[in-house]
């Protein structure tokens, strides 16, 4: 490190060269960004949510812009674990060799689908340092309510998957009932928590009286949700002793620093990657500069250093 500050962090057993991670669904499978910079300089990348079988996703329009953010209803379109490993496995394994941790995100519509996805990741993607369980999907078998929308449901899915995962297991929480669900996930065996996912929101075209997305509601992300995400990271960090991966509207090093002060060990850049594909290295540099200004020798000294 040029600054002399140690930026390496340990996210529940995932040893990252720095705290910068990328959010699922905003970074493709990593290679799409290689034309902009050397992706291996990041601490980690998180893949698009991967299901046991390919998912087509939702019809267009899948995205609209709102004040200080975007809304999406992509529907976790992905070619399935086997398709991803066939197409991108060599690249992702190479990324691990280059020192950037790869976190494979698993998605499902029922507990059995999560188990199937995770089994395939274990079998086909041994290169990945960690698995992130996205428990913000609708549970089709249970009337479409969130897979992890209550502490009981979150606990059930994490317990069902935990024995199948030999690597560090992150759980990506929905932004609801944060302290209770965080504790439930920790008790069920999660090694770290990722939060927040997008916030369910709505945008109506007043001329056509229709949704601006192909579904009535979609997930809100971007700077609009950042202060909510900071509050939820702080709540989660007070409720559990496992590390937090802070996500939500991080657009600058200052935003990332807020997350770290609130209790995040790693910070994940999502929506900002879309308009600003070099956000990762820029935010890393700004974060390191902040650590220098805070006069610490190790970024970990600042995790949870918020004083109220």
């Amino acid at each position: 490190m040029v600054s002399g500050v140690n930026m390496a962090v340990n996210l529940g057993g995932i040893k990252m060269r720095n705290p910068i991670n990328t959010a699922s669904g905003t970074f493709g499978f990593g290679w799409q960004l290689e034309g902009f910079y050397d992706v291996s300089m990041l601490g980690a990348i998180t893949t698009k949510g991967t299901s046991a079988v390919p998912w087509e996703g939702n019809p267009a329009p899948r995205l609209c812009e709102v004040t200080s953010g975007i809304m999406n209803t992509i529907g976790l379109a992905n070619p399935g674990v086997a398709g991803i490993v066939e197409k991108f496995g060599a690249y992702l394994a190479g990324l691990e060799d280059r020192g950037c941790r790869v976190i494979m995100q698993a998605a499902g519509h029922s507990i059995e689908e999560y188990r199937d996805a995770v089994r395939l990741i274990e079998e086909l993607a041994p290169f990945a340092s960690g698995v992130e369980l996205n428990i913000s999907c609708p549970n089709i078998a249970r009337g479409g309510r969130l897979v992890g929308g209550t502490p009981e449901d979150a606990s059930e899915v994490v317990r069902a998957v935990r024995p199948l995962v030999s690597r560090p297991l992150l759980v990506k929480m929905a932004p609801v009932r944060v302290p209770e669900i965080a504790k439930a996930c920790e008790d069920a065996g999660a090694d770290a928590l990722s939060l927040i996912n997008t916030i369910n929101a709505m945008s109506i075209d007043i001329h056509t009286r229709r949704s601006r997305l192909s579904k009535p509601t979609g997930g809100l992300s971007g700077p609009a949700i950042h202060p909510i995400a900071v509050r939820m990271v702080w709540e989660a960090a007070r409720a559990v002793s496992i590390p937090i991966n802070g996500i939500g509207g991080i657009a600058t090093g200052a935003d990332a620093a807020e997350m770290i002060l609130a209790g995040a060990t790693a910070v994940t850049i999502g929506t900002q990657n879309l308009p600003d594909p070099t956000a990762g290295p820029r935010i890393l540099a700004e974060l390191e500069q902040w650590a220098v200004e805070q006069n610490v020798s190790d970024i970990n000294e600042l995790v949870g250093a918020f004083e109220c």
Partner: protein
Amino acid sequence: MIAANAQGLQGTVGLHEFCVLANEQVARDTFRLEISSLVAKRIQPGQFMNFAVPGDPTHILRIPLSFSHADAPDSHVTMYYVTVGEGTKRLSSMRTGDISTVVGPCGKGWRLPEDLSGRCLLVSGGIGLAPIAAAAGMLSDAGIAYDVIAGFQTAARIPERLISEMEPLLADDAKIHLATDDGSYGFAGFTTRLMEQLIAEHSYGCVLTCGPEVMMHGIAAICAREGIACQASMERMMGCGFGACGACNIPLVAGGYASCCMDGPVFDAKEVAW
């Protein structure tokens, strides 16, 4: 990056600074933007760029624009755009000398027709004429003759400057046919009706089209009926422009979706589930 190359997965899209050389109104709600940027060295006809337009931090996304002409040696690129939304209105306020960035070149552009002996027909609706002008340049460079149908809502929206930039490239016997929906200039009616007249008089080996989706659907249907190859340049709301977000899906006849920004924006019209 070595691993990426080994997989043929090296990203080809880059981030480039641009400087505004000119940004002037040329027709109702229609502007001509000329920039200086190194993206000009690599961009191909039918590809697009994603513009960061300063001035409003509450709108975070870039604005995707196709181009009409790129001059690689001079690093100049020319765009024509219509001020339809907040972003393009903001873009219209950029002045000569202003600096920002583009992401590009994005996507896959026009392809030369497989049968180089046939004549081509280019059909645009509205400002879709801009990427059609780039296609015209590509065909002229390849020595392929073409006619153009350019449709507009009304005469006040016709960018005469763009048409005058295209005219010198035309073959001696070729023509740009103008049409307006309201009959205020040229052929009165939709481009599909004018196309029916032209294909009754001439034989065309391929059609390249860009415009409103409903128009392109009509053009593609005529091509399918007549057995003419057709390429269509599609449009979608885009998040990134380089395959990271999966927002810009185009439904396919074969089932599932393609990515407008990576697999397109130019598609074989018979593969699109209109």
